[in-house]
């Protein structure tokens, strides 16, 4: 699997009212990699995600998956939104099965994979509950299971934990990290939380706003055997502080 984002620009609107939102964004993502895009809100993170998902078209530049130009949405790019996007009339299990049923997979296979992915996200006991009966963290785990069950080549996560409490966020970060280690998934995570990005991603791109562009890329080669230790380890804190100052400078240089 190889996702190539090449010189992608995007503006909304036409003529003199056109608003540039992305300016020549380029990066690559390979099988098994975990990549994060970090930037303050309004830096075009969701926009680039939507372009990759095929929900919107770039104004210029191109996005290719395994050499194929992306022309629209497809099951090879699963997406998890920040806002809970479970189908409120379906149980947790039915939500997980939803994509597979859209794909027309055989019933037995759907049942088997649903059970498997509910187990992977630790929600076997909640299989029959409706979304409104689940906590925010559980809902996002169902959404992730639903995406994974449809067998995407890459999982696109748009601030998946942005609406959760701090405590739950941390346990969800642990969860996502374990999931990545266990399943070998390929993930693109968008967040405005620098710590989250550095904890989870092997490579982090920092984005500047107006128009959105990548201003700094770092490889994060740290020992991830324990995220709790990593959070407070000196090299991690040093890297975090260095990049935080980059983000701060970007924010303060904005016209008020």
């Amino acid at each position, binding site marked *: 699997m190889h996702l190539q984002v090449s010189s992608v620009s995007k503006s909304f609107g036409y003529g003199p009212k056109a608003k540039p939102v992305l300016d020549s964004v380029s990066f690559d993502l390979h099988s098994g990699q975990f990549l994060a895009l970090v930037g303050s809100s309004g830096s075009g993170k969701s926009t680039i995600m939507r372009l990759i998902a095929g929900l919107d078209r770039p104004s210029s530049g191109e996005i290719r998956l395994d050499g194929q130009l992306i022309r629209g*949405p497809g*099951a090879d790019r699963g997406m998890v939104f920040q806002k809970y996007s479970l*189908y409120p009339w379906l149980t947790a299990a039915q939500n997980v099965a939803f994509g597979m049923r859209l794909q027309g997979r055989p019933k037995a296979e759907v049942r088997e994979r649903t059970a498997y992915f509910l187990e992977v996200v630790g929600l076997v006991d909640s299989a029959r509950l409706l979304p409104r009966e689940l906590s925010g963290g559980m809902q996002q785990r169902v959404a992730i299971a639903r995406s994974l069950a449809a067998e995407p080549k890459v999982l696109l996560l748009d601030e998946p934990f942005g609406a959760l409490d701090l405590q739950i966020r941390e346990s969800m970060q642990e969860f996502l990290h374990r999931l990545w280690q266990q399943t070998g998934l390929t993930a693109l995570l968008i967040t405005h939380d620098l710590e989250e990005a550095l904890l989870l991603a092997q490579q982090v791109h920092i984005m500047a706003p107006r128009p959105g562009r990548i201003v700094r890329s770092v490889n994060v080669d740290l020992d991830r055997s324990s995220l709790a230790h990593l959070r407070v380890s000196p090299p991690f804190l040093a890297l975090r502080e260095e990049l935080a100052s980059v983000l701060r400078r970007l924010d303060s240089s904005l016209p008020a």
Partner: protein
Amino acid sequence: MPSNEADPLNRWSSLRRFMAQPWVLGLVGVATVLLIWLLTTASGAVDKLFLPSPQAVWQAGQAQWTSGVLVKDAVASIQRVFIGFALSAGLALPIGIAMGTNQTICRLLEPLMALIRYMPAPAFIPLLIIYFGLEELPKVLLIFIGTFFFNTLMIMDAVKFVPSELVETALTLGGRGLPILTRVVAPFIAPQVLDTYRINMASAWNLVIVAELVAATEGLGKRISLAQRFLRTDEIFVGLIVIGLVGLCIDLGFRFLMRKACAWAN
């Protein structure tokens, strides 16, 4: 001393709990009006011709029941409402969904529908009689005209409020056109569609009575206009009460359906 105080307090709170049941106050309201009606007629202050007593109305109702007129009228009215509204609801669903999902269709039809919606349906009666005579068709069409545009526009609105995340999630799971309509849009709008039908059913029920007042051989509205000709106020009251009760039953039926079919939305 303490037990003396606790007792009335306790009684008060259990009374309050009883009154808090949603149906209790509603029943109290109905009973109060009935009582006032009973007392007013019993006092003889009002001419019986203007305000018949509840007993007289009950007797008139019983007479209509035993002669079979009541059932025949009710069936005739309900049938008209059912056919006219089924046509309206059945056609409004696809057109409303089309308008809610497709901007071109919406821009084409919305102004037209918004305009016709404000034309009072009863004003179409003369035209319908000229075109289709005095049979069933004009009455059914009146119900259709009076509810179709409301149904369509309200369904269109429901479709427009489907959260884009739900549709986009389906797209990124490999969903396309029709399956998204049937598996995402349809279940999401189902509660609003049922509620739309429930609300507009009330106007269908109004319109059938209006149509029958003008021209019909049977039906609850027809019975009322006949009763007026013979100054039978007791029969007018029977008609009004039956119309109200049937309408209430239809409303409750829709609520029941909604609670059963769309439990997730409650």
